[in-house]
């Protein structure tokens, strides 16, 4: 195996494994857009907050980050509902789309400020005893943490899929995404769905955040990098499409990893922006988005 081919394959493997985590974060982001037509700029900050929560549970109580996911998910779900009720629900004006975008940005800054007061701005990482071990298969390296992250993300995405497709709440959510007015006429309480939907988006951020803390060192400012990648993924997948977000996450993550391993890490952080611009030029509605409404 020549060096560059090997690097390419290693990049693809790395990209796919990381892509699972991004898929989880982005699915929450796109779900919130689908339900409320709000681009949630605080999604990255919620992920970082969840990462800090599991970091603290690990360092203070010795609880493994993977085991505390149910706990952080519940906490973040509650926080998401509160954010929707306090900051987004009161916006009723016609330009609420523009206002809510800016409100979520302000919420992101508020969370960033809060996190840098509580945890300072030094980089943290959740160092479990399995953090640095890895398997090697056919010369390709699989770090244990990334494999676990990938599997966990698949499980969380599976649960999300079941929730959306097999429960009454999920049906209400899908109805709201497809046609809010008809959904309301048929008895869906759109306000409740919006609050719970925002909570659900925050809950996916919680699960993803615990894993994120295992994979990368982070500080309160990390949400800026996260949010621009998440937004590119969501646009590529098609705003409002959960399936699209998952596929887009894999595409973006794999291309970034390939650019990083084959060319240089300097340009890998530029990859998603190039993808974003290409999508907007070639297919503005994204892979699975519709021009008019969201589809799930």
């Amino acid at each position, binding site marked *: 195996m020549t060096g560059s081919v090997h690097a390419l394959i290693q990049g693809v493997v790395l990209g796919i494994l990381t892509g699972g985590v991004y898929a989880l974060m982005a699915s929450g982001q796109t779900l919130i857009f689908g339900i409320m037509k709000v681009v949630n700029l605080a999604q990255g900050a919620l992920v970082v907050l969840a990462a800090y929560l599991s970091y603290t549970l690990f360092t203070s109580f010795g609880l493994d980050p993977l085991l505390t996911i149910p706990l952080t998910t519940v906490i973040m779900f509650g926080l998401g509902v509160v954010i929707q009720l306090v900051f987004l629900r009161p*916006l009723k*004006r016609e330009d609420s789309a523009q206002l809510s975008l*800016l409100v979520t940005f302000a919420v992101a*800054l508020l969370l960033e400020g809060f996190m840098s007061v509580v945890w300072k701005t030094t980089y943290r990482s959740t160092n479990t005893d399995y953090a640095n071990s890895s398997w090697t298969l056919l010369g390709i390296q699989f770090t244990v943490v990334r494999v676990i992250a990938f599997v966990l993300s698949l499980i969380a995405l599976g649960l999300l899929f079941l929730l959306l497709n097999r429960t009454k709440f999920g049906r209400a959510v899908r109805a709201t995404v497809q046609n809010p007015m008809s959904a309301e006429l048929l008895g869906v309480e759109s306000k409740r769905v919006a609050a719970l939907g925002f909570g659900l988006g925050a809950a996916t951020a919680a699960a993803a955040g615990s894993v994120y803390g295992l994979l990368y060192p982070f500080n309160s400012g990390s949400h800026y990098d996260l949010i621009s990648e998440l937004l590119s993924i969501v*646009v590529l997948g098609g*705003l409002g499409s959960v399936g699209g977000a998952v596929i887009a996450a894999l595409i973006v993550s794999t291309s970034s990893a390939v650019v990083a391993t084959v060319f240089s890490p300097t340009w890998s952080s530029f990859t998603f922006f190039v993808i974003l611009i290409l999508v907007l030029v070639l297919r503005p509605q994204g892979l699975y988005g519709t021009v008019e409404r969201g589809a799930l």
Partner: protein
Amino acid sequence: MVRGGVFVAALVALPLLGFEHWVLNLMIFTLMYAAMSSAWNLVGGFAGYPSLGHAAFFGLGAYFVGIWFQHHDVVTGYEPFVILPLAGLIAAVVGFPIAWVAMRTRADVFAIVTITLLFVAQTLAFNLDSLTGGAQGLAMPTPPFELARFEWPFYYAMLWLLLTSMALTYLSMRSKVGLSLDAIRADEDKALGVGVHVQGVKVLAFSVSVALVAMAGGVWAYYETFTYPQFAFDPIITIGMVLMCFLGGRGTLWGPVIGAFILVPGQQYLAYRLGGSQFYLIAYAGVFLLIMLLMPRGILPTIADRLRRRRAIASSSGPPPSSDVPPPSSGAGTNVPVPSGGAA
């Protein structure tokens, strides 16, 4: 008009009154934010496209001036001001294609592209060491101005930028461009239907807006004498512009100026009291959230509404309120006149 004359005269005379350095320093930042917020208003307020990436162009201007004077000498001290229009031109040239692509779809996607642009620009400034100096930053030549009047050139440069922004806003409000922008914000599809050159007007507004912001960035870099990626491409700069515009009143001539004159001193006070640390970020975000929730239209439109209502009560058959400033058109839901012909 009288209001404008008094405002300009007061600001021109201010350095002559012998204030202390910290006052002029504060005024330079106030004028800078007033100019940038006015410029943001052209896109975010009038056209209704909330750009979150204006700080990318602020940083672009700062780095352009910084890089230029790695290769050129400063003799009289005024050279950086002379090349400012070039910084503006480059920002417009960079901004034009991005706006062209980003403004083809809805405002949400525009906001996404602009905020992504900001972080990409910051990452590039960190990573392109050979050009930008990376995390070490870029040092500018020290301005050779005499100490007693050290702030004057920066002060007048920022004032000039503010007056240019305001003049452009005023002219666009009185012309077809302003009407077209109003129409775009009210209902873009209908505006297109009646023949407004929607795409051209939006992209023009964006290019002019980012050019002004880049020039402010250039002056800032020279004044600070040091440029770092995290300060030149700071999201707080974007938020400042947006916040001031919202506080004073979007889509009005004086709104962003009032917003800046309230918030910049307030911001400096907060930074002084809270040690400029993380509490300051919390306070800033908190103020933003309060404004959005309690007074989403801003000070000027709210006051204008109150006055109009009071006058309507005072003379039930009275004429509509008149003023030398065109009535603020920021209120969503007001009837916006749509030009019937094709706009230039």
